[in-house]
């Protein structure tokens, strides 16, 4: 019980004090769980983080669930995710309640105007940053395949109103077909 409470408060504190997205939470979790408390080793944490990043969903939430589960099974996972999510929930409920009142304030409008510009810039940078992971070096065919997928997805997302989830599923299907085709050592399938 005591450990559950500790898992909850650690995650709550991390959730409350990290601004700028969930990825910033991972180094903080390393400090709290591995360096300060020694509940898990750094190596094990990094393994968990790798899994957290390849699972669908919010990375920081995945990471806290995995660490919580590792420490105290399902109860630990629940305590961790509650702690990680609760600060966001409380803060954003407050923000949404006050939204109509502060949104016309000139200072807020100015700040939002600049931050929106910054967010768009960051989005461009993130997609640029992802190219190393998304377009693997390796064989030329693999690289060409992933660039073609990206081009097709960009065209679909930007020019049509198709639901983005279908595009993601299409990518998964294309990935399966491609590696199946490659394993047969033969033709490349053009479906996407």
């Amino acid at each position, binding site marked *: 019980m005591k450990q559950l409470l500790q898992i909850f408060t650690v995650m709550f504190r991390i*959730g*409350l*004090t990290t*601004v*700028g*997205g*969930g990825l910033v939470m991972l180094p903080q979790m390393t400090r709290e769980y591995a360096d300060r408390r020694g509940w898990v080793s750094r190596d094990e944490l990094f393994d968990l983080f790798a899994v957290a990043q*390849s*699972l*669908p*969903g*919010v*990375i920081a*939430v995945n990471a806290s669930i995995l660490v919580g*589960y590792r420490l105290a099974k399902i109860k630990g996972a*629940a305590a961790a*995710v509650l702690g990680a*999510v609760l600060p*966001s929930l409380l*803060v*954003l*409920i407050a*923000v*949404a*309640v006050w939204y109509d009142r502060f949104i016309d304030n*000139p200072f807020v*409008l*100015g*700040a939002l*105007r*600049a931050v*929106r*510009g*910054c*967010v*768009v*810039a*960051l*989005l*461009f*940078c993130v*997609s*640029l940053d*992802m190219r190393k992971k*998304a377009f693997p070096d390796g064989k030329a065919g693999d690289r060409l395949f992933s*660039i073609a997928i990206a081009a097709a*997805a*960009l065209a679909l*997302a*930007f020019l049509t109103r198709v*639901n*983005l*989830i279908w*595009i*993601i599923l*299409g*990518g*998964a299907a294309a990935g*399966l077909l491609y*590696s199946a085709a490659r394993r047969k050592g033969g033709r490349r399938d053009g479906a996407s």
Partner: protein
Amino acid sequence: MTELLRLLWTFLKLGAFTVGGGYAIIPLIHQEMTAAGYMTQTEALNMVAISQMTPGPLAINAATFAGMRTAGVAGALTATVGVVLPSFVLATLAGKYFFRFQESTLIRSMLSGMRPVVLALIAAAALELSRETFFWERAVPLWERVDLPALAVAAVCAVAALTVRKLPPALLIAAAGVFGALFLR
């Protein structure tokens, strides 16, 4: 009640289909919110900006904000539970059965097709949001419709993010916010 069920379904989908973290959920959440008429484009854009300025994971912040705006506190709870639930199921399963989860060929080949898609979707969102962010909706000559100060902020942010290694995005966002509050009123 049906409103809440619709929110739950929307955010379950978002939680189950985002790979690659917070930024990847922005295009999805933006499309879902504006297509369903929950929000105007500007409101959705403000939601993303506010989610960046507040503590915690971006996607959770955005989900809470969207749920709150559509159906109050119950909506906020529903949306957040919706985003987290797929993670909870999948991550506990992975914690239990895994450990070589990401080494499975099946998962690997699916991810190899999904990663380029996620990159493209984020780029597409950036392009689409640019239109909203840097241009006024007014029937004046093109050069007067461009929001030059916002564009300049974006350019500085992009250069800073690309040149300074390990620069925390929060710092950039905070600096942009202060600059905007002081000079873009």
